[in-house]
């Protein structure tokens, strides 16, 4: 049997490591923010990566520029993301929903280009990015950096493990906050605005004010994604925050099911698991000669994995358009 040559153990190791790894946590947090925006408040945000960048830069600059305590630096990241939300929301939230979509996609690119511009070099270090902020965080790492932590075959080095733990704690806290809010009267108003803004207005709810709150909340949660990523990678690189990243967050959200509390976490775990699985399997198939190089060479595996994951998602949308956690009933109502 030709498939016997494939090291399934290794593939599953990699898959699970990535599914619960730093990237999955970062994507989950960013998608939780997006879920607040789109899933609950109906705000079309196509620039979530801008909030992520603001969080990362806010935290990084708090240390490199102002030498703040790490906890205050986190507050700095939140303030940056909240400011970004205000900046976007004030002119657009009084207008129709599409205007926010247009503005966010542009604003996110502006943030990235500004951060890597030579004009801002003294502050943001241009394309090099921020690299000197991690020290103060490492002082609080309870795990030994030289040791390896893990269960069974899944293991992480101490520094990485620290960031992953922070990431998932933040993700679960964000889910908790969203869950608490969305079952409250506040969440009811936000959902009412998603359904019909005029109806909410006619019932005495200040739609603009609630949309702004939702935009800030989702944006700050997005900012946390950037902070977790920065701590995990010990760097803030402007070119990490490219526009397509936003759409991977969207993908994670839609995969899990829009408007459900747990969907971003499930979506992120499944997305990273799936993409790692396909990538590793593809590589081994090429390496072992199961797939001849005339069909696919090793360097093409990384592109092919997106094809395959894309096809899988297209199938999901056909057979389960509401996502994994979404309710078919709600989906049907939406179509009316």
């Amino acid at each position, binding site marked *: 049997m030709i498939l016997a040559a494939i090291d399934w153990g290794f593939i599953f190791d990699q898959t699970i490591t990535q599914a619960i790894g730093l990237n999955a946590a970062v994507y989950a947090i960013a998608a939780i923010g997006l879920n607040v925006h789109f899933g609950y408040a109906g705000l079309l945000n196509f620039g979530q990566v801008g909030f992520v960048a603001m969080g990362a830069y806010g935290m990084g600059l708090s240390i490199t520029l102002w030498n703040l305590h790490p906890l205050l630096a986190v507050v700095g990241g939140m303030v940056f993301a909240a400011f970004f939300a205000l900046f976007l929301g004030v002119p657009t939230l009084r207008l129709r929903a599409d205007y926010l979509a247009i503005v966010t996609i542009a604003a996110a690119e502006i943030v990235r280009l500004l951060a890597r511009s030579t004009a801002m070099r003294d502050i943001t270090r241009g394309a090099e990015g921020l690299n000197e902020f991690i020290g103060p965080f490492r002082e609080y790492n309870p795990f030994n950096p030289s040791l390896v932590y893990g269960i069974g075959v899944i293991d992480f080095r101490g520094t990485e493990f620290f960031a992953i733990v922070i990431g998932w704690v933040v993700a679960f806290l964000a889910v908790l906050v969203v869950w608490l*809010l969305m079952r409250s009267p*506040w969440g009811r108003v936000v959902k009412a605005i998603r*359904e019909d803004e005029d109806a909410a207005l006619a*019932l005495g709810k200040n739609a603009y004010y609630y949309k702004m709150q939702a935009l800030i909340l989702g944006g700050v949660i997005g900012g946390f994604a950037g902070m977790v990523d920065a701590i995990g990678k010990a760097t803030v690189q402007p070119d990490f925050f490219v526009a397509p990243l936003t759409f991977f967050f969207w993908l994670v959200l839609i995969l899990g099911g829009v408007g459900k509390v747990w969907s971003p976490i499930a979506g992120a775990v499944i997305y990273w698991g799936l993409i790692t699985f396909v990538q590793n399997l593809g590589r081994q198939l090429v390496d072992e000669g199961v797939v001849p190089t005339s069909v696919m060479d090793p360097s093409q595996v990384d592109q092919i994995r997106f094809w395959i994951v894309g096809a899988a998602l297209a199938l999901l949308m056909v057979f389960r358009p509401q996502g994994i956690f979404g309710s078919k009933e709600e989906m049907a*109502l939406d179509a009316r």
Partner: protein
Amino acid sequence: MPDEAPILVDGTGLGTIANEPGVAKPDPIVVVDKMRRAFGGIVAVNVDHLEIQRGVITGLIGPNGAGKTTFFNLLTGFDSPNTGHAEFNGASIDGTSPHTLARRGMVRTFQLTKSLTRLSVMENMKLGSQKQGGEVFWRALVPPLWLTQDREIEKRADVLLERFKLSHMRDEYAGTLSGGQRKLLEMARALMSSPEVIMLDEPMAGVNPALTQDLLEHVKGLPDEGVTVVFVEHDMDVVRDISDWVVVMAEGSIIAEGSHSTITANRDVIDAYLGTHHDAPIDFDEEAARITEDEAAAAREIARDEEIVQKIEEAGDDDD
């Protein structure tokens, strides 16, 4: 002239009021003055003066395109007039946002029902309630701060749902309701805010006759609870059945006001609905006279034709 206020002949205070557009009412809750709204060259609303009496049901009628819904939008803050002034409870409402007006007690429903489809019927109802502590972000995070109030609101909502025959649907998505049930829900939801004035935009449109009767009973009962009702409606039976006072709009202006009986006899109203140059109804004598006249005219015509033919023939003879 409050001391000259008429005796409440019919319990509405409107019994002795003159039936003319813009007439002053003894106790107006809404006063509109010189309100004008134009969309480009089209003047949608041009109301010189209108007072809406407190505690009664006022019907707003008029042909399609008369500006009724635009007028509603102007009153409820969903649109702003180009010029003009409006008062609610004696205070100006110019430039007031719709949500502020709703909080001050002026609540509206929409011609195209706006049920919040992916919220349950109960959640829809709860949204109507004002001054909820749990609607504040920080309080929302701590359930003990709002749960008690929420339960009280739920009790109030259950009573209203019972009255509007929606109790069996309370936990279903509002999107699963029928068109008529949505109208009921929207009205019940508006009542959750304990409004002073409720403005209903075509509340009976698309509702089956059996349900219409239910809705009408609810609307009729509102003044007894101190709620002033203003409604737009096309169905004249409905207007006759429930309105204490009827205001007629045409081409943006108020052309008539009065009780239902005086309105249906009003020449301007008939003109507005049927067109200014429609033929007046004719009786048999008139018709007979007309027929005789027509026949005589036809006879004259034939005679003239024959005369011409004869002349031509004679002329032809001459030529030969």
